[in-house]
């Protein structure tokens, strides 16, 4: 709980900055559109239908779609002007949330403007107002109560949806929710929900005060609500102002416990060297590498096999060292990315069984497993069965399981423990392998590619001695047992450690 509170100023500041900018931008876009829609019946339908259509896209997908779009645009501007921009983090989140804020405001503002008494509108012409004066002095003030209702809706939506910007690399209150979901830290999840809900309620109430003021032509209420909002936003943003000081390093992490721990390990070493570190966590697998290649994050840990298959598109398996060597050469040539070296352990796809079940069936290798597969049930995580690794191993051994069932990782381990499935697709550094006394089946044909944890550094930091000096001592020092223990301390059901605590324990065990 206290750890959650310690993170609040930063998370809240970004969340407020993001939602307030998106809302402001959304209003700035939708008001002119609403004016056009209220004046021209022919524009009205396409505009409202278009905004409604955007609303039907799930917010997470909308955020996800902006990333590749911006990446493309960034490449384009870079090739034209020599300067790209960050396709990750704030920009895609801002754009997606802005689109989200447009519909409610557009809809109510159009209704509000069309609801202005035609006699009053004609009077505005009659007293000699220009069309612009009529809009600002008569139509908008009269439509304001209705518009404010739409702004309230937009504010609540935006604040809620802003929690989803975490996976595209934007810090928000969603960091609590996503990190909590991965490490099964339900207090974190609840904390994130409560914080976001409280923020939404506050914004809604203050905007409600302005709405009531607008409806009753009570200027004091409008001013009180507006001032409350401005002051609230200003206070929430204070932490960002002081964070702006030293331009530091950005450490990335994908969205599972080991990644959080390793990011903390790296960040901790940099911070102790006096550097300012920004963490970008919960990045999607492909997003992380691209962000590194683009220089938006400076360092993160990936796995040799993942980069080998997903980024380089290779399907062969020349062996652990050969893969790391080839990566070192090819990534440097391709993206300027530096492969600093392997941490010393693998987090490979592995097939794991309960020890007594494996002994009872006499299974020690994937070849044994393939023979008995028609009698056995396979449990896997959500994505494994769609990955190239599974296709490769399946082609090598020819599995035909009785059933294949997909689970969230936690439930996959429970299913194995309760005997619902006989074998699961695990990760070799998962702490639960040791804790649940599981055996990992051998791969005699070498069909599963190696997954050495490798430290990747972006090209723009290639000459950064301080960074390299801070990270080099980690190379080759992290054993799979140490990593499993660290992972387990975060993943276990009771007495959970936070990733930062686990990273400190892990580092202590290295020396």
């Amino acid at each position, binding site marked *: 709980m206290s750890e959650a509170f310690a993170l609040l100023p930063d998370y809240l500041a970004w969340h407020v900055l993001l939602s307030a900018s998106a809302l402001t931008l959304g209003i700035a876009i939708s008001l002119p559109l609403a004016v056009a829609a209220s004046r021209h019946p022919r524009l009205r339908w396409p505009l409202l239908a278009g905004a409604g259509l955007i609303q039907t896209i799930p917010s997470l997908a909308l955020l996800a779609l902006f990333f590749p779009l911006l990446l493309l645009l960034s490449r384009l501007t870079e090739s034209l002007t020599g300067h790209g921009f960050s396709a990750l983090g704030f920009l895609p989140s801002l754009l997606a949330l802005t689109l989200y804020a447009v519909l409610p405001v557009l809809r109510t503002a159009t209704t509000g403007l069309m609801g202005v*008494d035609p*006699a*009053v509108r*004609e*009077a*505005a*012409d*009659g*007293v*000699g*107002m*220009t069309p612009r*004066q009529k809009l600002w002095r*008569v139509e908008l*003030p*009269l439509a304001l109560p209705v518009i404010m209702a739409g702004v309230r809706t937009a504010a609540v939506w935006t604040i809620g949806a802003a929690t989803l910007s975490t996976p595209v690399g934007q810090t928000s209150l969603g960091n609590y929710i996503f990190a909590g979901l991965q490490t099964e830290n339900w207090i974190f999840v609840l904390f994130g929900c409560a914080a976001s809900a409280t923020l939404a309620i506050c914004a809604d109430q203050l905007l409600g005060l302005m709405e009531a003021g607008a409806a009753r*032509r009570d200027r004091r209420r409008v001013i009180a609500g507006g001032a409350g909002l401005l002051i609230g936003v200003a206070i929430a943003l204070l932490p960002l102002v002081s964070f702006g000081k030293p331009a530091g390093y950005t450490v990335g992490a994908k969205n599972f416990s080991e990644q959080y721990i390793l990011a903390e390990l790296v960040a901790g070493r940099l911070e102790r060297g006096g550097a300012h570190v920004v963490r970008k966590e919960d990045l999607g697998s492909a997003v992380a590498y691209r962000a590194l290649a683009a220089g938006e994050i400076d360092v993160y840990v990936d796995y040799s096999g993942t980069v080998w298959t997903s980024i380089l598109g290779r399907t062969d398996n020349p062996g652990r060292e050969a893969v790391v060597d080839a990566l070192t050469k090819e990534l440097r040539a391709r993206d300027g990315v530096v492969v600093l070296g392997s941490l010393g352990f693998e987090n490979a796809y592995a097939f794991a069984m309960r020890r007594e079940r494996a002994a009872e069936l006499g299974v020690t290798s994937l070849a044994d497993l393939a023979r008995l597969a028609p009698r056995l049930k396979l449990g896997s995580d959500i994505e494994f069965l769609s990955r190239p690794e599974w296709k490769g191993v399946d082609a090598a051994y020819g599995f035909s399981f009785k059933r294949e069932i997909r689970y969230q990782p936690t439930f996959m381990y429970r299913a194995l423990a309760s005997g619902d499935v006989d074998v699961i697709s695990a990760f070799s550094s998962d702490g639960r392998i040791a804790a649940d006394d599981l055996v990992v089946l051998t791969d005699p044909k070498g069909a599963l590619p190696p997954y050495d944890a490798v430290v990747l550094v972006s090209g723009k930091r290639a000459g950064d001695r301080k960074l390299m000096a801070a990270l080099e001592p980690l190379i080759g020092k992290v054993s799979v047992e140490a990593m499993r223990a660290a992972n387990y301390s975060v993943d276990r059901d009771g007495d959970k450690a936070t990733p930062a605590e686990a990273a400190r324990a892990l580092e202590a065990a290295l020396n």
Partner: protein
Amino acid sequence: MAVTDIEIAGVEKRYGEHVALARVSLTIPAGQFVALVGASGSGKTTLLKTLNRLITPDAGAIRIGGEDIGAGPPHRLRRKIGYVFQEVGLFPHLTVGENIAVTPRLLDWPPARITARVEALLALVALPVAMASRAPSELSGGQRQRVGVARALAAEPGILLMDEPFGALDPLTRDALGTDVRALHDRLGLTTVMVTHDMAEAVLLADRIVVLRDGAVVADGAPEDLARSVADPGVRDLLDAPRRQALRLAARLGGGQ
């Protein structure tokens, strides 16, 4: 005061098949007070609105002081013409004072002059100065109409167009305000066109009465001339209405007086 002759030449307005104005031609010399009368739907409002370009005619031309009103932006024309709407159309989000001050503000009058003007106009339309801070929704129908007249006169226009300005007033105030407006017309040298249903009012206030029927002028002249010369039975009926009414009233209230 600028020359404010109004010249209406062959003005036509159609709504689909319906002819709202059929080639209306009128010349209103500066300083004249014209009453526009006619049955409901005869085109009175339509004609009045063409004078400040709230309605654009389909054919014909209108000149004020010799200049075609179609030249230049409409708001400039409208700031020089006071208009009292049939539906009053006060701005509900502004106070009475702000409603009256709206055109002077558009013309960037100095604030002190505006304040003085608002007070003078409230006095003119017989409303207490304290009413300036009220919202239009807090006024009676008649009070609103008076504010409508005050707003039209605020920027000291040379031309005053009024569409049934006294419709919701009690007879005494109606009589008084009518007389006041006529006095004002004379004092300021206005050119006034007033639409009314009430022939007695037209006869009492106007220098000239124009009768419309189905969008066309069917009678036009000074009240006393019309009373003498008109042969058209419809118009006759209309002109005789006040006298008939007076006789009936006298009969019902008892012949003693």
